[in-house]
């Protein structure tokens, strides 16, 4: 066990944990941020996607000891009120079905648009294919990303 200081959504958190504990479970079970989901635990589905200094990572395989001083952003920190362009576009396009994968989809999409203000379909495929949506919302995810790119 060791003490870690994490910066999550702009707030400092002190956490006592084993070095190997994945960030996912720190967020969910210690910090109480349950918007980030568990889907596979082995970097296969993207449900656990969060940002580390703006980079999308799979939190289920990101050990707490490797986070360091990097800023962790979760779905709860993407905006304070659901007003991030991807969130607004997701609402307009009515993307979610069950919704379980959507935090991960939104975090992946936000990271993509951060780097590439108007991605092509191929670039969207490239960035989003790490995220599984078992409900099959892909077509609306794609539309919503294009909308968010346009409407900023």
């Amino acid at each position: 066990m060791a003490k870690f200081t994490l910066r999550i959504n702009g707030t400092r958190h002190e956490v006592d944990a084993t070095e190997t504990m994945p960030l996912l479970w720190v967020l969910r079970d210690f910090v109480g941020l349950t918007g980030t989901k568990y889907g596979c635990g082995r970097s296969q589905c993207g449900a656990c996607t969060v940002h580390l200094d703006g980079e999308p990572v799979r939190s289920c395989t990101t050990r707490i000891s490797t986070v360091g001083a990097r800023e962790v952003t979760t779905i709860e920190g993407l905006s304070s009120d659901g007003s991030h362009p991807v969130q607004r576009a997701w609402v307009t396009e009515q993307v979610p079905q069950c919704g379980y994968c959507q935090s991960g989809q939104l975090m992946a999409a936000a990271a993509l648009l951060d780097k590439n203000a108007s991605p092509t379909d191929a670039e969207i495929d490239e960035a989003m294919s790490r995220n599984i949506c078992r409900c099959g919302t892909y077509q609306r995810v794609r539309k919503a990303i294009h909308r968010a790119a346009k409407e900023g």
Partner: protein
Amino acid sequence: MIKIRKLDPMNRRDFVKLGSAAGGGLLLSVSFPTKSARAAEPAHLDFDAVDMLGDGFQPNAFLHIAETGNIEIWVGRADMGQGVRTSLPMIVADELDADWNRVTSRQADAHPDKYGRQMTVGSTSVRRGGWMPLRRAGAAAREMLVTAAATQWAVPASECRTEMGRVIHNASGRSADYGALVGAAAALPVPEEPRLKDPSEFALIGTDVPQVDTQLKVTGQATFGIDVRVPDMLFATVLKSTVLGGSLESLDDSAAREVPGVRDVIKISSGVAVVADHTWAAFEGARALECSWQADFAMSSSEISTHNARLCEGDGVVAREAGDVGTALAAGTQRLEADYEVPYLAHATMEPMNCTAHVEADRCEIWAPTQNPQGTQRVGAELTGLPIEQVTTHVTYLGCGWGRRSRTDFVQDAVETSMKVGAPVQVVWTREEDMRNDQYRPASMIRFHGATDANGRLSALSARVAGPPLGVTDGPSRGDGADRNAVDGIATLLYDVPNLVVDYCRSNVQVPTGYWRSVGPSGNTFMLEGFIDELAQGAGRDPLEFRLELLDGHPRMKHVLQKVSEMCDWAAGPPKGRGRGIGLVEDKGGIVAQIAEVSVADGLRVHRVWCAADCGQIIHSGIVDAQLTGSIVTGLTAALYGEITIDEGKVVQSNFHDYEMLRMSDMPEVEVHIVRNREEPGGVGEPGVPPIAPAVVNAIFALTGQRLRKLPIRMA
């Protein structure tokens, strides 16, 4: 006692009841005496009983109009992405002429009879659940509010109209908000035969209003089962037998107990529960357990497949018969026979199985992502010995359902664990346990014989289905007739075939089986539509024309097929290097036709899918479009990748690396056309699944001449 009686939709009495609302307002309950509401849903699924949904209404809601004019509608069904939290309240609100912006949708807890049948399976929430009862509830409330206003104003009720939550009297220019009228309305008798809207008057039904929970789902605030947090709760996972049906032989938990955060290791009926301070410690603890399992079952997939084929050699139980197949086959100009086969499939809901329970001396509280709220409540009562009223069951959001969550095995894990540790516990299965302890879509096969006559028309078809029934491991089978689910989609075929026999050979292979999105047709439609295509191609016929001429007796189905062919301009044919194929189904009251366009030059790729659907009167067009598109993803995932293999009694696959899902990069461009009509509402959540697999294999054949008779697709 609740009386059991047959449904007579035109003459229902007492279906809407007045209640007393704490804090005032008008409270109406939709309450039917129904067969299904006779008692709580049984804890253990009876797959036959569940099939008899048609016998009664399954009411769905309570309606409360407050003095503020705000309206609450409780939804008894579970929402797994099919949108019932939006669509069911829309039905009430439309008849009520409510202001949709002032309607709040609330998820109901489980109750043995208050909300009727809460089991959410079979695409039934609207078609065999809410449609008429909810309309009548809304209409009754509206009529009471109008009567209250008319009395107050001393004008004839017939001169009043309603709009956006207000009663309006044009002649006198008076109007009143519903909220101002609820006091007076609550004192009135509930009308027995309220006037229902003519469909042309619908204002909400059939539209695409924003869904009630999108905002929650894009901000991470929707509470799924796994997100439930109860003060002082512990986290647990359960290690289960590696062999199907196995039981624990020996256990060494010393290493598990050393894992930081692990509190306890206990035996429960389904395996070994590791209880910890957080989920990760529970998972790590479970990994550190040394267990051995004893099991009788040791079959492998190849043996199961051979077993099904051998069953086809014996006798079958007839499920449907017409004409004289033997003679017609012998007389056929073209005679074909073929074996088709589909594998076991896991549900792989995005949210793994989980449940939170808190058992105390005199009460039990359960939070579950369940399609079976009443069964969940019943499990709580049975395990704790508490009366059902002392078991509270909250239904959370469900990260997919697909039928998997109609079972209550994960509920049992949580209740047992909480009883043993004496604390609130959340049990979360790892993805691996989830995939290996499923109730799978059955592996089955069909042996077909078919013939066409001199005109190239289908003249005879025989289909022998071999596979296990659903719930095959639940105990001794109830009878040996043709299992309705096993032959669904084939015994129910709508093509006009003068000489037809469908029979069934029951397998007793002990791999657990259960509902999987669209159930029987998920495999049977692939097999049937593939073989129909073979017969058409063999007779030198266009597969579209071949099907259309068999559908004269089913104009809606014919229309859907014609529609989809127009969408892609079937007659013009595909672009160079591509092939197109058709799949068609009538399933759970919905009719869906799909055409897939594929290429194979760079490996198989499904480029486009056209989908036409007639699901009768629709409630929410955006949800219907999403369900159909999502169903194509479900069906295509199964067609391209889906296979659970069994090796000496063990499930081989464990996670998404070896049980793959369709991803964004594989997603075809899907175009959906919804046929609008005013037929009775049909199912929406499932009938889009079956047609895509045959559409794809038929397209591959059209392009390459290679006929694929087995899923998942493996190109030669």
